[in-house]
């Protein structure tokens, strides 16, 4: 059984052209942690750094088996959802088709599989982005603004999904109001 590991962020500095993000003494030890903060406080930067997608100074100590959901991913919009998922499945050694069906059912996308991605609404595209991230069997899921554009039902389903997968760790950013009483989670303010 996987036990939730601690993630620690110390002396973290990411320099951009016009500003820098400095973070220190952050600990993530809950199964679900929500990172909150104002625009530009470094929420997305921290997730990207945790996913090893950007260069930074400082220490991030954590399990490197992560799956990352980018807030602004552009999906290949001219193809159908089925082609999109088939492509991702093709990269897996052990193709997990059942999980796609499970996640598409959970996020009410099962009847949209034959539709082109550009015909989907913004919320549905967020769900597709979420599914592609959750599809990977990893220890930690880093979700950058997963609630953006989601309806209440989907927010409920996502929180439920996270609660059910207690052997996984979820680190989420959110700049919008999110009722943290809905789930037992840690909150980190930047």
């Amino acid at each position, binding site marked *: 059984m996987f036990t939730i590991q601690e993630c620690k962020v110390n002396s973290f500095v990411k320099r951009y052209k016009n500003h820098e993000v400095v973070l220190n003494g952050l600990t993530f030890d809950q199964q679900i942690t929500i990172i909150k903060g104002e625009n530009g406080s470094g929420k997305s930067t921290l997730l*990207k750094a945790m*996913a*090893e*997608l*950007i*260069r930074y100074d400082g220490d991030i100590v954590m399990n490197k088996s992560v*799956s*990352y959901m*980018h807030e602004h*991913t*552009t*999906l*290949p*919009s*001219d*193809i159908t959802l089925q*082609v*999109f998922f*088939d*492509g*991702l499945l*093709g*990269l*897996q050694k052990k193709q997990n088709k059942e999980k796609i069906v499970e996640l598409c059912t959970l996020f009410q996308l099962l009847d949209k599989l034959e539709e082109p991605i550009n015909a989907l609404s913004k919320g549905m595209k967020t769900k597709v*982005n979420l599914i*592609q*991230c959750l599809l*990977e069997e990893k220890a930690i899921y880093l979700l950058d603004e997963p609630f953006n554009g989601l309806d209440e039902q989907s927010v409920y389903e996502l929180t439920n999904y996270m609660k059910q997968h207690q052997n996984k760790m979820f680190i989420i950013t959110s700049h919008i109001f999110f009722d943290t009483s809905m789930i037992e989670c840690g909150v980190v303010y930047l």
Partner: protein
Amino acid sequence: MIRLTRLHINYLLSEKVFLFTIFLIGLSSIFLLYSANVGVSESTMMFYQEYYTKQLMIEMLNFGKILVIVYLLFMMIMGYVIHQYDVMILNRVGIIKLKCSKMLAMWFFVLYLITIYFMIFVIIGVYITPFMVISNQYFVIYGEFLFFGFFYTMVFVYLYEISKHLLGLIAGFMFYLIVFIGSVDDIQKEDVSKGMQYLYRILLDLGYYQGEGVGFYYDKIYYLALILGSGLIVYFLRKNADLIN
């Protein structure tokens, strides 16, 4: 790598790409038919067989080069600027594998277009014109064309990797236009101007040289070393850069 390349091809082979490819193939057919001088009498064509053959080949070359570059620009915009799905793939594979597979996918599209273009050329040459005789020479030209496509695929990818902007791709297109406009066909290599000689040191062009036929100004090995060397420079320039914005 093959599965990853297939993923890129599947993601990029959209209706838009298909229609644009069909449009270019149609345009090529019309151009090659026009270049085949269908209105000229058969006896005249046969009398000036060498002239007409050379003329058709030079026109096929020039149109084909622009075709490849325009298609490459279009595919690069589709694959790198419009559909930025790389971050999802980075969840699954390493950056080097991702970049190489995407480059291979681009090269595949170019290869596909060049092959169809050549088939149209051969069909028109054999069935429409009375003068063209199929020989090994055309397979050699096909090979040279593939190398041309490969070289510029790499150039476009490098320029995008350095600039991370559409302007990088447009710059690649402009660079080629300069080479294309400056190139003169059907002259001897010794007669190539000094300016063009310098330009050919960094960018290749496929030309028709008197006495040598279709080829590049410098040897292919030189251009291969040039493009691989440039690849190393791009790698070291981007090595410490962020993988995503």
